[in-house]
């Protein structure tokens, strides 16, 4: 008897759906913990500089503008320079950096790949000055002395 070893496989392939992703028409969600476009929350940042320190490609630029009641800090995340390692988000104690699941980072203008946030870091309120006066001297006629 002649055997046709691949007939079944061929028939199932003819009638099954193609394995191609229908990408631009059907958007696919990125997997869990995907490290995509950076989102910065300037309201939580305290300008500690830890993210700049751990970023190996130097993708984070901080500009500080002196103002009357504090510093105007602008953090810029250059996503065209980033390796998406998530070190900045892991080291940020205030959770102000977030790597979202948005993977569609395509731009014809490089400015579209910069995520920036500005916030005002207020000057610390000066503490009450300690008075110059010496504390009162202990009493001499203390019985225990």
């Amino acid at each position, binding site marked *: 008897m002649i055997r046709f070893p691949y007939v079944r496989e061929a028939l199932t392939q003819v009638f099954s759906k193609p394995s191609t992703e229908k990408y631009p028409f059907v958007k696919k969600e990125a997997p869990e913990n995907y490290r995509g476009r950076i989102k910065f929350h300037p309201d939580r940042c305290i300008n500690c500089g830890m993210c700049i320190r751990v970023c190996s490609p130097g993708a984070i630029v901080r500009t500080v503008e002196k103002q009357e009641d504090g510093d105007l800090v602008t953090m810029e995340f250059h996503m*065209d320079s980033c390796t998406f390692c998530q070190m900045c988000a892991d080291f940020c104690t205030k959770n102000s950096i977030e790597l979202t699941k948005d993977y569609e980072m395509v731009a014809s203008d490089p400015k579209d790949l910069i995520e920036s946030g500005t916030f005002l870091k207020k000057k610390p309120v000066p503490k009450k000055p300690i008075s110059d006066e010496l504390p009162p001297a202990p009493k001499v006629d203390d019985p225990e002395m």
Partner: protein
Amino acid sequence: MFKKLIDNSTAKSPWIYHINAGSCNGCDIELVAVLTPRYDAERFGFKLAGTPRHADIVVVSGPVTSQSKERLIRTLEQVPEPRVIVSLGSCPRSCNVFKGSYSVEGPLDKFCHVDISVAGCAPKPEAIVLGLAQAAQLLKQKREEAAQK
């Protein structure tokens, strides 16, 4: 009549040429994945060309190392106008972690104008498909502008 037919067909099928200018191979693998049946950029007519002289879209990956700089310039010169240059990943845009290295001469926009940049390290294949689609649109625009002149 034939010219119109040729114009229509070339608009529907832009050919890609891929230059690796010292990339780590991450982006290159993703670009190849885009051309496989899973993501299938060939649905939209993209085809990998064997020579820069046949290409419409040039995809560059890598931070442009000293070794590859000469070749990159020579290859880009051979691509006929109108062309669209797509930078793949962070490296050609900014040299990424290699910036400041003695053997890196990038970024790419020192040597040519970059039309579309796809960010990511490495970019997700979906993002590359999107980038190529935008590049094809830009190419169509450039062709129309060139025809009007």
